């Protein structure tokens, strides 16, 4: 299989098809990330579309020391922030907030009647403050490394470790009954 780096190189040399292959490879992941961050199909579609347009036009600015996937998710994250800024879905400051609560009780969390563990878990992840939610999604869903997450979010590796740790503690606490049930 052709690596991302090879496709990026081909795309830079004017092969549109290589850009198309990169788009096909990441369209679902990028859209899913936007969808999970924004909880809104239409806004996520807009953010994903802008992400790929910027990927197509800005590929020349990609540094060789940054993995393509991390660079793409950094663009997607910025687009999510733009949507948030324009539509005021989530308060902007909550993306940079590391001092306040990890859990946001205001977000709907109705899991009592739901037996699907994936839905229960996603509802719980949606209750995390955006700064923590994005760390969990980038690590556990998109499988990025700490360095890549730090590059995507513009923070340090230490901050990423801390956010993941706090998120996991609170998810553990909130999901204790459901995951103990599974274990039995």
């Amino acid at each position, binding site marked *: 299989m052709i690596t991302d780096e090879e496709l990026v190189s081909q795309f830079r040399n004017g092969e549109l098809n290589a850009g*198309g292959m990169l788009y096909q490879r990441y*369209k*679902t992941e990028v859209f899913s990330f936007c969808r999970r961050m924004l909880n809104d199909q239409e806004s996520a*579609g807009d953010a994903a579309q802008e992400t790929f347009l910027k990927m197509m036009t800005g590929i020349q600015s990609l540094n060789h020391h940054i993995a393509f996937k991390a660079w793409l998710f950094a663009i997607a994250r910025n687009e999510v922030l733009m949507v948030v800024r324009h539509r005021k879905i989530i308060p902007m400051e909550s993306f940079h907030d590391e001092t306040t609560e990890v859990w946001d009780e205001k977000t709907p969390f109705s899991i009592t009647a739901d037996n699907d563990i*994936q839905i229960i878990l996603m509802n719980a992840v949606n209750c995390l403050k955006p700064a923590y939610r994005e760390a969990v999604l980038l690590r556990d869903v998109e499988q990025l490394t*700490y360095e890549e997450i730090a590059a995507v979010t513009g923070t340090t590796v230490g901050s990423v*470790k801390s956010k993941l740790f706090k998120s*996991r503690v609170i998810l553990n606490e909130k999901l204790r009954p459901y995951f103990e049930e*599974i*274990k039995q």
Partner: protein
Amino acid sequence: MNCQTGKEYISQLLDNELESEFLQPLFQHLAECSECRSFYTRTRSIQKTLGHLPNHELPELVDQKFAVLAIGKEKRTLMNRKITIPVPSAMLSGVFVFMLSILFVFFIRNLQSNFQYVDQKFEMNYTRPTPSTLQMPQYN
């Protein structure tokens, strides 16, 4: 090691980001602390479940916009199709074609000499008609 540090290390361990020097103290703590063992098990289950979440499909309308830009949909015809061949296979094919062409030339030359031989034999066996042997037509 206290439970706070233990859980921090567990979080890093599950991400394969824990430095090896902390493994021994962590395992020692896990052997003694049931709360941290439960934390490890639950966090691993949560991580596994998150890793298997189904993706959301990109809306068709957005996907079509990129198709309009002729991105991602390659129009392949027989004439613009690219084929990649590994170098060793390409070299072997070249040698094979070269040897085949030598054999072909050899075969053609051999064929030519055979024809010449047949011609010579024919020349030897064939007696050309001379004027004396020719039957002239008689007219009344």
